[in-house]
């Protein structure tokens, strides 16, 4: 097996890993403002892809508009979830809230199945499906889209959290809710915003992924799980760690399948994840928990 095979494994790994990373990013944003792990994050990814497919089919408005509409619709759904399912039970313990998100994910999946059916659907590639060859390895134009969009999103989020007042407000909420209240930050609004942004990021991930991997009402489960693992690898609460964690998971999977055994691909990735957690429980890029006195 030569260099080109290795390069191919690497490219495959990075492409899939970017999507895990985007899902992980969504987890992190909500976790940071609320302390909740939102298990409906995979459903946002699914909705982004599936809604694009149907908007394209129903309205015949071309790919870019359908995609835009799907991402907006998913963000609205994210807001609705926060307003009508999370906010009414906000006083509850974190565990209760996490259970609520699991319920939401099952509800969304079931509803999607009833409305759109159980079939698998596909979106056209954004810019053709002829692969480019690079040193003997094939790169799909869509992979470049995935990488570029992921990087742009990361950059935009970084700017949002460091430069804008809303971003700073959300960060403040993640440090201390009560103190944020006291300095006049609308915590409710920030939590709502965090759901909207997570849904947005998830939906964009779903949209750019669907041409490559296809979509159906139940793709969210596996993506959610992988995204969550990516979060843990990168260290829960660190957005850039989460994205890096996703890429690492993708590369591990790809090389595991290519070099060791494709039958144990997931097992290899998750074993490495377990070892990592034994050695460094806070994740690769997470700060170990400091007890403040």
């Amino acid at each position, binding site marked *: 097996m030569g260099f080109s095979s290795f390069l191919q*494994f690497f490219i495959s790994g990075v492409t899939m890993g970017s999507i895990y990373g985007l899902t992980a990013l969504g987890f992190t944003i909500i976790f940071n403002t609320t302390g909740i792990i939102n298990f409906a994050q995979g459903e946002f990814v699914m909705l982004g892809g599936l809604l694009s497919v149907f908007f394209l089919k129903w309205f015949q408005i071309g790919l870019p508009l359908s995609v835009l509409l799907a991402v907006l619709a998913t963000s609205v759904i994210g807001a609705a979830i926060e307003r009508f399912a999370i906010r009414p039970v906000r006083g509850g313990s974190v565990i209760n809230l996490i259970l609520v998100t699991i319920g939401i994910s099952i509800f969304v999946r079931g509803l999607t199945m009833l409305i759109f059916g159980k079939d698998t659907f596909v979106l056209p590639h954004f810019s053709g499906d002829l692969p480019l060859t690079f040193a003997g390895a*094939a790169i799909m134009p869509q992979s470049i889209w995935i990488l570029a969009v992921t990087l742009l999103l990361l950059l935009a989020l970084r700017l949002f959290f460091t430069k804008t007042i809303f971003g700073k407000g959300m960060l403040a909420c993640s440090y201390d809710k009560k103190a944020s209240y006291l300095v006049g930050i609308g915590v409710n609004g920030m939590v709502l915003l965090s759901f909207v942004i997570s849904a947005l990021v998830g939906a964009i991930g779903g949209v750019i992924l669907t041409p490559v991997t*296809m979509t159906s009402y139940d793709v969210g489960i*596996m993506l959610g799980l992988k995204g969550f693992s990516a979060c843990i690898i990168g260290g829960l609460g660190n957005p850039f760690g989460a994205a890096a964690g996703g890429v690492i998971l993708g590369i591990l999977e790809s090389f595991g399948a*290519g070099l060791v055994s*494709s039958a144990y*691909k997931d097992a290899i990735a998750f074993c490495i994840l377990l070892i990592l957690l034994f050695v460094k429980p806070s994740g690769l890029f997470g700060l170990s928990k400091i007890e403040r006195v």
Partner: protein
Amino acid sequence: MKQVRYLVLAIMAVLFSFTTLWAEDPIKIGAVLSVTGPASPLGEPERNTAQLVQEQINAKGGLLGRKLEIIVYDDESAVDKALTAADKLLKKDNVSAVIGPTTTPNTLAIEAKFDAAAVPLVSCAAGEKIVVPVKNWVFKTPQSDRLAVARILSHLKSRKIDKIAILTVSDAFGQGGREMLKALGPKAGVEIVADEVYSPKDTDMTAQLTKIKSTDAKALVSWGTPQTGSAIVTKNRVQLGITIPLYLSHGVASPKFIELAGSAGEGVLLPAGRLIVADEVPAKNPQKAVLTKYVKDYETKFKSPVSTFGGHAWDAIMLVVKAIEMGKSDKPADIRANLEKIKGFVGTGGVFNFSPQEHNGLDESAFEMVSIVKGAWKIVK
């Protein structure tokens, strides 16, 4: 006293009027089908077919002059629900025969009950284990993996290909195909030079395909369904510039696959029952009439394209109906005995020849090699 007598008369009159309306009880056939859940793309057309056949037979005056009633229970693609449904059909509904379940695991889970209850079961699932070794009361209509693999191997031989790579999905269906390929391949003089696996939910198989690309395989055989990765394998192979022929399983034979695989699907080869190429089947083929009629009836009633799976249910029900007509009896034991005697029954899946040793009744001729040409299934000569 007089009032009581009138009351009795009135009750008897009511009862009699009912018995004259329904001369005899209906003939009851049960069905356990995966109408919802992951296997629903298979189970839904099967349920539709059951409704279609029931309507058609009753419109023609029923069976043996009695009404035909097909009682369908949905097992939600789950084994435990299939068990409950089987119990209900056997103990509460007292059916004469049962068709289904849709999937192999569910069939294997419930088949022991039918031996115990002495009621025939005609499964719509493909797994060979259902009828090998032969169980007295269990039959099945879909073509076995063994036949599909044998058909692919003989096609490989005709193209003088002796080295293949296999890429299979890690569920019951894919692994069944993998075992069969590994068992029959060497016997047919076809060497397996790479044996790769992927999970049903995987979304990228380029790693496995890159590995296969570096071997000297002259063809790739991939065992899965459109829902479990076959379309992705088909696309990934084009992306990586793999040019060796791609053979897929008979589970792929649906219009959905063409939609999902897009232009990458052109030229893939697979064995398929004749239902999906009904238009193309030559008029002299014995199946032509049955296929054309089923396709037309189904598509007019349900406004959706037929699938192979609905065809399996059609075969199962019509075989039971045939057995009932042969013995002029709906006693389970008679149905079973007559099922074994059926020879030359033309169904959608092939021409069935049952015997006490053969409870599937099909051979390799049930398959045609088909390919996708300009977005449609075509028979490969």
